[in-house]
């Protein structure tokens, strides 16, 4: 059953990617980690992302996140973007103690513990700006720095995601080491436990630290690995930590003259630990399967430069 669903979900990913092949983006070498590259002034890229996230505590779980993005080089060192996000999910007995639970993006849904849950929804629109403060190409030490800000706005979701992006190049700029530090305070409208039948805004802070290495092993082709630590706090002041998970995996990137594609795969490592606000039953075998965490993620990004 699970294999069947996974295959159908993978087919959906492939179909989505195929349908969106007329689109493209800012040439990502990694699935999750950003580099300091920005579009030259006046250039436009369109990107399509599709992310498949699957396997939770038990039962079956498949989630597909879709993002469509348009990027523009405002100057050679300042890139701006607009995008829209949507989510599809199918879950059954996937959560703590085998109860059916929705993913974080649809956390306001309240399926019954034994329901076969399936839903798809447009979730938010967002803007993004990346300011390259220091180009790794213009300094002998090969170190680049960029700042990233992304406010997102949805009917039930508000977030400001910020990143510090660091990069160092080696070997004629064919080997790129990049690190990101992310701070993202957010609000989600969720059912209010203290006031049944009503919703309330829940505060949360996501902090991520990631590092990756990409090597261009042949013209147009790069291979990469990345390691990401994702942490969540049920507050805006770093108290009430709920989750800390580590994801690791490879990426392959093809960069043509106008078109690029990046395919990445991340697996959650058994390094999760229990924290003060961890959800009972969400951490199994040193993996956390709370509503924004799963065992593995496949991400495909395709883009086209106009």
């Amino acid at each position: 059953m699970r294999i069947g669903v996974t295959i159908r979900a993978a087919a959906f990913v492939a179909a989505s990617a195929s349908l969106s092949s007329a689109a493209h983006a800012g040439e990502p070498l990694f699935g999750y980690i950003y580099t300091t590259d920005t579009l030259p002034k006046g250039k436009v890229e369109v990107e399509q992302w599709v992310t498949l996230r699957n396997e939770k505590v038990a039962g079956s779980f498949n989630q597909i996140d879709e993002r469509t993005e348009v990027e523009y080089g405002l100057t050679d060192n300042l890139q701006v973007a607009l995008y829209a996000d949507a989510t599809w999910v199918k879950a059954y007995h996937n959560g703590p103690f085998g109860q059916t639970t929705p993913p974080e993006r649809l956390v306001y849904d309240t399926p019954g513990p034994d329901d076969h849950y399936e839903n798809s929804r447009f979730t938010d629109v967002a803007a993004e700006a990346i300011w390259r403060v220091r180009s790794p190409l213009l300094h002998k030490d090969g170190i680049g720095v960029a700042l990233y800000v992304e406010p997102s706005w949805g009917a039930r979701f508000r977030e400001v995601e910020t990143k510090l992006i660091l990069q160092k190049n080696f070997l004629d700029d064919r080997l790129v080491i990049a690190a990101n530090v992310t701070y993202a305070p957010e609000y989600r409208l969720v059912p209010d436990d203290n006031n049944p039948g009503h919703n309330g805004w829940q505060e949360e802070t996501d902090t991520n630290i990631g590092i990756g290495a990409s090597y261009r092993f042949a013209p147009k082709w790069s291979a990469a690995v990345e390691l990401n630590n994702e942490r969540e706090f049920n507050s805006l002041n770093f108290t009430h930590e709920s989750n800390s998970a580590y994801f690791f995996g490879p990426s392959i990137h093809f960069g043509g003259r106008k078109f690029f594609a990046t395919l990445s795969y991340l697996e959650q490592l058994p390094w999760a630990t229990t924290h003060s606000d961890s959800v009972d039953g969400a951490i199994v075998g040193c993996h956390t399967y709370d509503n924004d965490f799963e065992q593995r993620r496949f991400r495909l990004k395709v883009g086209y430069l106009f």
Partner: protein
Amino acid sequence: MKRYTLLFSALAAPSAVHATVFMSPEQAQAVMFPGEVLRPDPRQLSDDQVSAIRKASGESPLHRDLKVWRASSGGWFIVDEVVGKHEFITLALALDATGAVKSVEILDYREAYGSQVRDPRWRAQFAGKRAGQSLQLGHEVKNISGATLSSKHVTDGVRRLLATYAIVLAHNS
């Protein structure tokens, strides 16, 4: 196996379609050494020469085979590649009989942007440069905003070829 070959060919096809060859080596020779006769003088770099070039220029040769021609005036014509954003950029370097840069030509460029390195005014900055002189992007050579990677690698490539001339060609002609 055939299926994989077809897939790889399909992925590689866009570059063949978009490859932009501006000049052949023969055409570049005619432009850079007008009226002169050039004879091929290919060289094979030894391990010691590669190490010496790397030490002198800070750049490693991409290939052991050195495509060199000698002009009837005593000048040198070298065709080589540097790393571009996605593919190699092929350039030609003309040196006079004393080893000073006469000119630089970009023979092919396959990237979507950054082709400003073909601008004659930008390439003219290399004229007169010699091995041993400082040659850095942002210092002796102006950066092209929006084409930083290409302008950096062309600059690094010229500095490497000047070192190659000094180590391999100048005393072994």
